[in-house]
C-alpha cells in the first residue's frame, strides 16, 4: 500500500485514494497527425509499454482528492517516489539524467534542449511528450 502525494492539490494519501494510469509520456500519434499513422506507430501507441527495473515514470490520478491527473517518477525496486510533477510537465532534469534504457532515449532530446539553454517548457501542452 503505497503512500502518494498529489502535486496538484498537495494531499497525501493511500494508494487506494489514487488511480494508477500506467506509463507516462505516451504520445497519441493521431493527435498530431491523424492521417499518416503507420501500423508500427499504432501498435507501439496501443500496446508497447516499458517495465523497467528501477527508475520509471508513471501517470496517476488523484481519485478521491482533486481529480487531477499527474505524473510520478518511481523506483520500481524500492518503490520510492522520486518526484511528482504535473501532467503537462517533464520530470526534473536530474531524474531525466538518471534515467536508463528506454527512458534515457526518450528524454535525450529534451536534455539536449536543456543543455542548449533552451528552457524546457514547463507548461506547454504541445511540448509534452
Amino acid at each position, binding site marked *: *500500500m*503505497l*503512500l502518494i502525494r498529489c502535486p496538484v492539490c498537495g494531499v497525501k494519501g*493511500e*494508494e487506494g485514494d489514487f488511480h494508477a*494510469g500506467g506509463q507516462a509520456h505516451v504520445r*497519441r*500519434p*493521431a*493527435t498530431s497527425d*491523424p*492521417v499518416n*499513422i503507420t*501500423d508500427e506507430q*499504432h501498435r507501439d*501507441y*496501443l500496446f508497447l509499454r516499458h517495465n523497467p527495473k528501477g527508475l520509471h515514470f508513471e*501517470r496517476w*490520478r488523484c481519485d478521491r482528492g482533486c*481529480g*487531477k*491527473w499527474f505524473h510520478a517518477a518511481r523506483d520500481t*525496486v*524500492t*518503490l*520510492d517516489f522520486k518526484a511528482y510533477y504535473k*501532467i*503537462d510537465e517533464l520530470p526534473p532534469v536530474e531524474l531525466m539524467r538518471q534515467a536508463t534504457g528506454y527512458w534515457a532515449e526518450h528524454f535525450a532530446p529534451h536534455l539536449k534542449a536543456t543543455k542548449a539553454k533552451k528552457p524546457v517548457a514547463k507548461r506547454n*501542452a504541445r511540448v*509534452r511528450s
Partner: protein
Amino acid sequence: MTGKPYRLPESAGAGRLTDRAKPVSFTFDGKKMTGFAGDSLASAVMANGQRLLGRSFKYHRPRGLVGLGSEEPNALVGVGEGARHEPNLRATQVELYDGMVAVSQNRWPSLGFDVGAFNNRLSRLFPSGFYYKTFMWPRSFWKTIYEPTIRHAAGLGKAPTGRDPDTYEQLHVHCEVLVIGGGVTGLAAAEAAASTGARVIIADENPRFGGLADIAGGKIDGRPQTDWAALRVQQLAKADNVHVLARTTVAGHFHHNYLLLFERLADHDPQLIADGVPRHRLWKVRANQVVVAAGAIERPIAFANNDRPGVLLASAARGLVERYGVAPGLMGVLFTNNDDAYRTALRLKEAGVGIACIVDVRQQVDGALAEAARAAGFEVMSGHAIAGIETDIGGKAISAVKVAPYSSGQGRVINEEKIECDFVAMSGGWNPAVHLWCHNGGKLKFDDSLQTFVPARHSDAISIAGAANGRMSVGECIAEGYAAGEAAAKAVMSKAKAVRMKPPSTEQEAEKRLEPIWFAPATGKYNEGNKHFIDFQNDVTAADLELAQREGYESVEHTKRYTTLGMATDQGKTSNVNGLGVVSQATGRVIPEIGTTTFRPPYTPISMGSIAGTSVGKLFLPVRKTPVFSWHEAEQANFEPVGEWRRPYCYPKMNEDRQAAVNREIMVVREGVGLLDASTLGKIEIKGPDAAALLDRVYTNTFSTLKIGKGRYGLMMNEMGFLMDDGVTVRLADDHFLMHTTSGGADRIAAWLEEWLQTEWMELRVFVTPVTEQWAQFAVAGPKAREVLQALGGDIDFSADGLSFMSMAEGRVGGYPVRVFRISFSGELSYEIAAPANFGRGLWDSLLKAGEPFGIKAYGTEALHVLRAEKGFIVIGDETDGTVTPLDVGLDWAVSKKKTDYIGKRSLEQSYLKAPNRKQLVGLYTEDPNEVLPDGAYAVEKVTDKPPMKMIGQVTSTYWSPTLKRSIAMALIEDGRNRMGEMLLFPLAGKVVKAQIVDPVFYDKQGARQNV
C-alpha cells in the same frame, strides 16, 4: 487415564501463569476436562493426560504438542460451536475459559481411531508431488473416487455453520514507531522510542508481555527477567504516547511501512462478547519507523519418527512447566545440539520431572550449562543421536528411544542403546523470527555460528533487534533494543531530545557453539518405516525433499512448491531452515548457496471477520436509490442489481410469476402506455466553447452539426476500436450538451472524458459535469403516451410536429420544471421526462394519476430489455463484450467516414477488424417457437458425439416475445450477415436446438410506431 501425574504440585514453583484457586471446566472432543485459569487449551489438555491433539494432514499420523506459541504446527483445534466455531487455531495460543468447547481436527471418525490413518500405510502413494503423479489416471477416477475421498479425509478445520453473530472492527492509525514483539528487546525499544515523545505502538501476539523472559534464564539487575519486563510494561501502559497491544499479531508488513495488526479482543472471554465487545480488531497502521523484535523460534531435529506425540521442542517442555505447571510426560530424554536446551533439563528437574539422559550430538560438551547439568546428576551422552522411537501399536505414545553414537557426516547406526521414556524434548538451535522483516523485501544472510539466516539489509524505514537479529543473550537484546528504539524515534523526531537509555546489568550463562544436525541416521533400512519429519503441518519428510532434488526440483522455490514444504498455515516457522539443511546435504551445496524461500503475510492467519470489519450487511455496499425507490418498494417490485443501483425488474401482481408480469408489462407498452423509472441512466453535462469538438472526438459520429434542441444516438469506442458505451446526446445550446450514457457506464465515461481533457487535449475548453443523481428521469412509452402528457398539462407542445422524434423541449409539465426528450428504446411513441431529483416522486405520482384513464402501468427493466430486443437495439455488455466493433453489430451508419480523428478510428482500419469472417450481429428464430435458447448458448458448425466442436458464435440476448408470441434471440455469429436463412445448431444438455438466422429487427422494421 488420570490427569494427576501431569499437573505438577504448586510447591514445585511451576505454573506461573495459572491460578490453582480457579478451576475451569471445558470439553475437548466432547470429553469433559478441567484446567485452571491461565491455562492454554494445549496445557490444560496435556494436564488431563491427553497427548494426542490432532492428526496430520496427509498421512493422518497421530500428533501431539510441538511448540509453545504461534509456531505450533500440530495442535490445530476448532473452538466454539455453530456459527461461533473458529477452526485452525493453535491450541498453544487458545486461552482457556470456563465452558469452552474445543475439538481436534483432521480426524474421522474420531481422534483415537482414524480411517485416514491408512494413508500412512500407503505412504508410498504420497511422495512429493503426489497430486501430480498418483491421481493422473484413469481419468474417470478423479471425479468419482480420488477427489471425494481426498476431500473427505484431508483438509484442516471445518467452516462455521451459519452467519457470524459477532462484531468486528477496524482502526486506521498513524504512529512514529511501531515495535513488533514485546519481549525484553521490544520493551527496551519501545521505552527508548517513547522517551522522545514519539507516538509508539508495541504489539505482542501473546496475552502477556515479556516474550521468553521467563524461560531464557539469566537475570537483569540481579532479579528475574520477568520482573524487569513487568515494570517496563507498567510504565509504557501509563504513557500517553504509547499503545500497548497484547493479543495482537503483526500479521504483515507492506509497502511504505503499512502494517496490519490483528488484535483478539474477546476470544479469551465469552462475557466480553456478551457485553458487545468486538471479537477481533484489525489495525491498519502507517508507521514512520518499524522495529522488529519478534524473537526467535526453536527448531526441531529431523530424527526417525520425530512426529510421535510426546516429541516436543525443549523450549515448549520448559514453558509448559514454568507457565502452566504441566509436565510434558513422566520421564523424558533431551536431544540437543546446543547449550540452551540444558536449561530445560535443569528446569524440569527442579519441578520434579524426570529426564533419563541428555543426548547431545556434539563430541565435546563442556559449556557452563552442561557442567551445571552434570553437577545436577544428569547423564550427558555426548556424540550421540536418537536413531529411533518405540511406541505403542497406534503410534500414539512413546515407550522408549534408541540412542546411537553419532558423528557429523556418518550415516550408519551402530551400537544402539534403548532408553525408556515417554517424551523427548528436542532442540536443534534457534531461528530468528525474520518473517516480518522479509515480508516487504528484507534481505537475509547466513550466520555460521547460529547455523541459520539472520537479517542483512532492508530498503524500508525498518530495523530489527534482539533474538530476531540473531542476538541470543539478554544483555545484547536489551542493548540492541534500546539502540533500535532510540534510532527509530530520532529518525522521525528530529527536534526531540532523546533520553539516553542506560542498559541494566545482566548475567546469563555463556553458551558454547552449536553443531548443526540436519538429519539423524535411523535404525533399520533407510526410510523403511521411518519418517524424518521436516514440516509437521504439511507432512513433508526429509525423504520427500531428497526425492525432489533427485527429480530435478533444485531451486529452493521449486522444492517448496513440489513438496509443499513451509506452505501450511504455520508458514514453515519450524521447518524452513531444517528443510534447507536437508537440501544442502542432498545436493552438496552449502545453505547460503541454496537461499531461502519467500516469507509471505500473514505471519499467522487472521480472521475473515476482521477483514470485513464493519462492512457487512447493509454496510457492505451502499445501495443507490432513485427518487422513486420508495414507490417501487411499496409496490413490492422485484429488484435486480444494476451496478450499485437497485432497479425494479418487474412488478408482479398477486398470483403472478415473474415471466407473467414481464409479459403483461410489455403488452401494456405495446398496446397502451407504460411508465419506466429510467433515473439511473447516466447523465453528463458538457459545456464550453469546445464542447462540440470534444464530442466529435469521443463519438464515432458527428455532433458539431447537431441543431440546438435535437438529439442524436452516439457510439463510443475505445482506442482499440471496440464499443464501450452508447446513448443519446442532446444539444441544449451552442456550447452546451447533455450526454446520456448507459446506467453502468456513467462514472466510467465521465472519468474517461476527464482523462482525455486533462492528459491529451488540454487545449479544449470544456467542463464535464456528471449530473446523474441530479435528475429523475422517466420514460412514458406506448401509443397513448402523448395523451397522458397532454392530460397532465403544461407549456410544452407534445404534438407530432411540436415535438418531433429525436427532439427535446424544456418547460413545465403538471407544474414541474422538466426537460422532455422524444427518444425511444422500445420502438413505441415515447418521451423521456427529466425533472430535478427532488421533484421526481411528485412527477411520478402525477404521471400515474394523469395516466390512470389510459391504463398506465409501471414497467421494469426486463420488459425494457425485451422491448428493445424486439426492435433489435443493442445493449452494451449484452451484444458487446469488449471485443465487438460498431461494424460487428451493424451500426456502420453511426461511424463517420468524414471526420479525420476520433477515438478508435485508426484501429478500425486494421485488417483484423475488417475481416469478413468476424462475428456479426444477427437475429435468431428457434425452429420450435416455444423454445427459448439459454443466454450464451454456443452455435457449432457440426454436432458430434462429444467435444470438441467448432464454435461459430453465441447467443447474446434471448427472450420470449409476447408481442410476436414466440421466442427471439440475438447472436454474434461468424460471417452472420451472409448466412441469412441458415439453420444453426445449438448443442445443449441432452438436446440440440435448431434456430434460423434472421434480421435482428424483429418488430416494426420501418420504425413506423415511434414516428406518430
